[in-house]
Structures are given as structure tokens and as C-alpha cells.
């Protein structure tokens, strides 16, 4: 299902949280809304779900208008037929896992083959034996899976994820990242994923929309976002950046302490060296800015050092 946002704005108490934004999410793609907290990414997601109404603009699912401020159309969330995985999982504590998953089917009176469908969803997330448990009897990862099963059981054309991995510990987060991506790919549905974690965004997405202060800064593939950031914010928020001057920067892995023919040479002063296991990370000073990049050996603080960067690796913004 293609999702199209057109000229959306939203203010809360006179503060503009979404500035005029348009975005088209391709059918079957995995799209991430990435940005720091308070950038409006969750608000945008809730608008797609219908939990929040934009002040202006319209929202289309394929060619169906589900929201239009102009035409006063606002299809309520319960009629939009989307799956949603909440940040805190939002499992109903008074219902068993089975009933949590079955809720969407019961609420929309799709009770035909209910048992079978619920079992299948639980099977997909490997929770076959947990149907009669209650949410508080499950671990964080299991709760996460129930929330996902609840979203897929209604066979939605699109699932929205609101920072679903942020409540998990680091190890589990990495596992679930792979698992979630696989499941979504298997189902072949559209996924919109909200996160503030760039690693999550980079590793899972087909496309990333980077948001800052209610504005979409750039909407592109992860590779483009990293190697060709369009704005200073994107360059600084995604990956680390070393600034040559106000408009030119390069990524750490592009710099070399070994002489390279045809590369530009810069002289830096080493501030400190950190051993990372596979390499050494150098913290250096170039004029007024701090650069970090990698080296194969420790270099004493205060050493003046030439650094080589190919011209095509320098990104101009």
C-alpha cells in the first residue's frame, strides 16, 4: 500500500511540531522516520494511523483519501485497518496473549477461523506455547513479539512501528532487529518505522526520512543519506563527520595517515589515541575543528601529522 502525505502541518499549543511536509512511501517498502526526540517523527506516524489529526494537508492510502483538512475527511483509526506496534508495546494487561492478538479480529467482527489465524500469528513470532499467558508473565522480547503478532494477525497492508525496540536491552535489540526485518520481508507488506537510533535506521530500511524540528531534511536510501547528505543536520546526525570548513566534510573512514597519490593533504595535531581492538581511533585538531579517524598504530599526543583524503570523498553541503 502506498502512503502519501501531502502538505501536512500540525501545531500543539502554538508550537509548530510539523512544518509543511510531504512524503510518499512506496508500497511494500520499509521506510524509517529518523530524527532526535521531539523532531515530530512520532507525530507523523500517529497521523498516518489516525491517532492525531493534522491541521492542514491530506493523507492518502493508495488512492483513498483517509484525511483531508480541506474536505473535512478524517477516517478514524479503527477504520484504517493498519497494524501498529507501540513503543511500550501497549499490551492489555487484563487479557491473555491469545485475547490480545485476537482483539483486532473480534473488534472488526472477523471471527471466522479466529483461532486458526491467531495461532498462525503466534507461530510466526515463535510464541505457540504462550497463548494462555498474561503479558506480565512474559519477557520484554516476548512482549515485543506479541505486539507484532497482534499487528500482523489482521493482515494489514501496512504496519506502523513506533520505536518498538527502544524498550529492549542492547543484545535483544540487535536480535529483534534482524527478526523483525525478516518477518516484514516475508509478509511483503509496507512498513513505516520510527526511531532515533541511526544504526537501526541504516540496517533495516529501504528508505530513510531524516526529520529535524518538524521538517523532513532528506528522504533517500540509507547509502545516499550517509554518503551524500543534503543538509548540515543530516551530515551531523547520521554517522560522524569531520568538517574542513563550514561547507565541506568527510567521513572518518575516508581519511588515511598513509600517503595516497593524488589525495589532498591536511596537517592535523594529534590530541589522543584510543585503541578499539581492530584499529586505533585518533582524536585530532584541524584548525578549529575536531577530527576523528582511524590509524593502524598509536600516535603520541602533540604529534603533527599529515592526513590524506581524496577529493571525491569530500562532501560539499
Amino acid at each position, binding site marked *: 500500500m502506498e502512503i502519501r502525505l501531502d502538505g501536512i502541518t500540525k501545531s500543539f499549543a502554538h508550537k509548530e511540531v510539523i512544518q509543511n511536509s510531504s512524503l510518499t512511501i512506496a508500497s511494500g517498502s520499509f521506510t524509517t522516520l529518523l530524527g532526535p526526540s521531539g523532531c515530530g517523527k512520532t507525530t507523523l506516524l500517529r497521523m498516518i494511523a489516525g491517532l492525531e489529526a493534522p491541521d492542514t494537508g491530506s493523507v492518502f492510502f493508495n488512492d483513498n483519501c483517509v484525511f483531508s483538512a480541506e474536505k473535512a475527511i478524517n477516517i478514524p483509526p479503527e477504520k484504517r485497518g493498519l497494524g501498529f506496534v507501540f513503543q511500550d508495546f*501497549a499490551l492489555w494487561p487484563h487479557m491473555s496473549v491469545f485475547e490480545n492478538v485476537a482483539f483486532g479480529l473480534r473488534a472488526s467482527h472477523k471471527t471466522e477461523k479466529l483461532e486458526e489465524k491467531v495461532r498462525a500469528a503466534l507461530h510466526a513470532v515463535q510464541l505457540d506455547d504462550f497463548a494462555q499467558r498474561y503479558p506480565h508473565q512474559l519477557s520484554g522480547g516476548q512482549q515485543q513479539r506479541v505486539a507484532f503478532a497482534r499487528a500482523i494477525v489482521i493482515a494489514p497492508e501496512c504496519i506502523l512501528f513506533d520505536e518498538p525496540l527502544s524498550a529492549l536491552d542492547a543484545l535483544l535489540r540487535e536480535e529483534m532487529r534482524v527478526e523483525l526485518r525478516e518477518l516484514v520481508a516475508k509478509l511483503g507488506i509496507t512498513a513505516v518505522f520510527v526511531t532515533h537510533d541511526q544504526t537501526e535506521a541504516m540496517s533495516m530500511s529501504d528508505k530513510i526520512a531524516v526529520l529535524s524540528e518538524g521538517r523532513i531534511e532528506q528522504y533517500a536510501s540509507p547509502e545516499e543519506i550517509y554518503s551524500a547528505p543534503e543538509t548540515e543536520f543530516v551530515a551531523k546526525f547520521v554517522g560522524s563527520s569531520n568538517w574542513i570548513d563550514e561547507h565541506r566534510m568527510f567521513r572518518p573512514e575516508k581519511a588515511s595517515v598513509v600517503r595516497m597519490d593524488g589525495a589532498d593533504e591536511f596537517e592535523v595535531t594529534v590530541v589522543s589515541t584510543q585503541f578499539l581492538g581492530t584499529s586505533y581511533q585518533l582524536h585530532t585538531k584541524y584548525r578549529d575543528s575536531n577530527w576523528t579517524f582511524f590509524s593502524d598504530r598509536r600516535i603520541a599526543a602533540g604529534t603533527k601529522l599529515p592526513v590524506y583524503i581524496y577529493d571525491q570523498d569530500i562532501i560539499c553541503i
Partner: protein
Amino acid sequence: MRPISLKKRAPVLILIAILFFLIVCPLIMIFTKAVIIDGRLDFSSAWQTLSENKNAVMIGNSLLLSTLVVLLSTVIATPLAYLFSRTKFARYRFFDIVFMIPFMTPPYIASMGWILFVQKRGLLQQLLPCMEGSENWFFTLGGLALVMSLHVFPFMLTILKNAMLNIPTSLEESGAVFGAGFGRRLQRIFMPLLGGNYAIGALLVFVKTLSEYGTPATLGKRIGFEVFTTEIHRYATIAPIDFGSSATLSSVLIGICLCMWMLQNYITTRKSYNLVSGKGARSIQQKLSAPATALGWFFIVLVLFVAVVIPYFSVISTSLIHLRGYGFAAGNFTLQHYIDLFTENTKGVSALKNSLFLAVSSATICAVLGTLIVLAVRNSKSRLRKPLEAMSLLPEMLPSIVLVIGIMLFWNQIYKILPLYNTLGIMVLAYVVLFLPYTVQYVTSSFTQISGSLMAAGQVFGGSGAYIFRRITLPLILKGVATGWMMTFIIAFRELVTASLIAPPNTLVVSTYIVREFEQGSVSVGMAMAVLCVLFTTTALLILNRFIAKQKGA
């Protein structure tokens, strides 16, 4: 801003209208009764009432008594709060429940227990003849303040204990690291951090004492110590009935209470510190030496003995003694009073029936109305939701007696339109007004524990408004509703001041039955009823606890 449709606003507006009629109208009635005479604004009569010498003395008495009770309950509660928060005594969680007993005991029953215990030829002097004359020091202002303190100190204990638990040990430890000794830490760190909470507790105790009717009506009457509540009651019930004076005194009492609440609000915002951070605060226990431990045990046992054992011992033994003149002698014990309660005449049984009816009906109405109010407040974006919530909580801030006087005056006034006065109906109505805040608070607190995303999830997964309410909201707030229902039931079952003011003629409830038997009938039968009343409400409370423990999840 899109205009909010009338349909969305209707629930809030209807509820505001109901509460205005039930709560605000009676209060307005009090003020008008006090200062409008023969249709003209006239302060002279109100001034006359207030300048009467005995009323001036009474106001002084009330303030003096409340101050004494604050001091005395501080003395009782502070060491206990320290023991239960910062020492090994904190382990014994069952004290949390035991120390709530005095607070859960109806004050009029506790003070009757004390009277029976200490009065001339009472239980104490029968057990220890050497205590003859002890009644002379007990039937004084000091005795009255003691009995009232023993009722309210658990309140102060809870507030202080929680405040002490919330002071992270690290703050004290950092004081120690930077060279402050125990005394200095107490003075410079511990006390300033507690100050705000203590002030709040003290004000609450002050207002509660000022509003209390049960103890002054039973024990205070014996020593001729009149306070606000007893005077308001007297003007409204004993010939020559003078509603004007009653209303004037009520207005003054409302004024004092509101000032206290404002002061409390000021202190809460200005002088209390937010000490609860997300980080888990370690609490380290103060080590107690063997003598200190013994002293701690001694204090705990002493307070329990005085606050729980003595009143219950008196009430229970009086209900079981055949002839009180013979005292504790073998063969002088009987269950006859309990049998008399049900067989002697129909009054006891009908009092029980009335109380049961009032408790069930008012608890049920409160549960429905209170839940509707909370739902309206939570789901509406209307600007009127704040006033609605404030109105629903207003009865808790004011002394019951004042509201009841207002209800009397107001429903008297509109008797020709709505002839509810002098029926059991007016009692149900008064109970609902008085106890509505319980349901509102319990349901609100269960609401705040529900993450908003639970409802949002219901919406996203296809639930309509009614479906979400039935499947998600209601099951999740049911605990709050049930707790509110049970608390209302328990408190309504033994409510005294309302019943003694507006019960229709010849209609007795449990509390008025006990008071009547105590004052002019068979004391033992009265105490038998008191025992039944406490047993019954305690059982209800235990059932409630069981019910809450059984609730799954959350």
C-alpha cells in the same frame, strides 16, 4: 481550533449541572442563610452570632484543640515514621496495616471505648482499684486531644514515613562525607527536606480535627468542651433552632478550611522538593543498638496498646459483660446483649437494615456518577473539565457537617418542588455528595496507571468507542471503581454526623443507634452493635483486599 460540537460537550455540561445542584447550591445556601435576612443583605445577625462571648470562646477552643492534636500526633507519629522508614523495623510490613486500625475505627466508637475505660468506676478502676481518681485527668482538654490524636496520627505517620523513605540516602551520605555529624545532618539536611511534607501533614491533621464531629460529640460533651461542629449541630437540632447562627458558624468554618487548603497548596508548590528520581535510590538502614531496639519496640507496643487495645478492649468487654456493676468476674459474661440487639425490639434490626440500604445505594450511585465524572474529565477537551473535577472533589475539602447543613437548608427551601427532605432519599443524596470524592479519586488513580497507548492500540486495531470502553477501559478501571464502592460502603455504613442531622424522625441507623444506646439506653447493647459494625466493615475491607489481590495483570 475547530469548534467542539455540542454532542461532545454535553456529558461535561450535564455532569456540571448535576454537581452544581448537589454540591454548590447547598454551599451557596449556607452563605445566603448567614447574611440574607428577610430578603436583605444583613451582616448584623451574623456579626451578633460571632461576637457572642460563648461563640468566641468556642472558636478559640476549636483552634486550640486542633493545635494540640497536631502537636500530639507529631509526637506519636514522628518516631514511628523514623522507625518504619530508616531502621530494621521497616521490614515488618504488617505494621502498615496494624497502624491503620485506629484510623479505620469510627472515632465515636473509639471515644466511647475510652469513656468506658477511664470513667468513674469504669473498666480501668475495676481492674486496678488504685487508679481511682484517674478520671479527673482524663476528662479534660488533654484527654480529648489525646483521643483525637490517637485517631488521626496514622495519617501523619503515612505522610512522614513516605517522605523519609523518599529522601535518598546519598543526600545524607554526602553530608557525612563533607564532614557533617549526625546532629548537623539531621538539622541541615533531613529536617529541611522533610519540612514541606510535615507542614502538609500538619495542616491535614488540623483540618481533620476541626471537621471532626464524633469525638467532640461524645467525649467533648462530657467535659463541656464545645467546638465548631458541636455548636453547628446544636443550633441546627436543639430548640430554639437557629439555622442562621448555624449557617454563620459553618461559613466561618468553611473560610478557615479553605485558608488551610490554600496554605497547603502554597507549601506543596514552594517548599516541597522533588526527591524521587528515575534512578533507584538506595536506602541504607540506620543501625540500632540493642537498647535502642528495645526502646523502639517499647514505643511501638505502647502506641498500639493505647490506640488499639484499650478502646477495643473496652468496647468488646462491655458488650460481653452481663452486669456492669460486677465488672470482670467469672459468670458475669454473656452474649445476651447481642441477642437483645435483634430480639428486644425492632430498632436494632431496622438500624442495621437502614445502614445497609444507605451504604449500598450511596456506594452504587457514587460508583456510577464518579466513574462518569472521571470519564468525562479524561475524555473531554472542554475547558469545563477542570471545574468539573474540582467540584467533584470539593466535598472532601470541607467538613461533612457543613455540607449536610447546606443540604438541609437547600432541600428545605425547595421542598415544595422536590419533596425529598425528611425521607431516606435525602440521606442517600447527602451520602452521595459527601463520599463522591472517594470514587473520583480511586477511579482517577486507576486511570493514571493506564498508559494512553492501551486505548490508542484499541483504536488502531479496529475497536469502536463503545467496544474499547467495554473491552479495555472498563476492565482496567474496574479495580478503582470497586475500591471506591467498597470504601464508600464502609464509610457510609457507619456515618454519624449526617444521620444525626437529617435522618427522618424515628429512623435510626447503626451510628445513631449506638450513640442513643450509649447515652440513654443499654450501653452494653450499644457496644454489641459497635462490635458488629466494626466486624462487618472490617470483613468488607478484607473481601476488598482479596478481590484486588485476585485481579490479574496490571
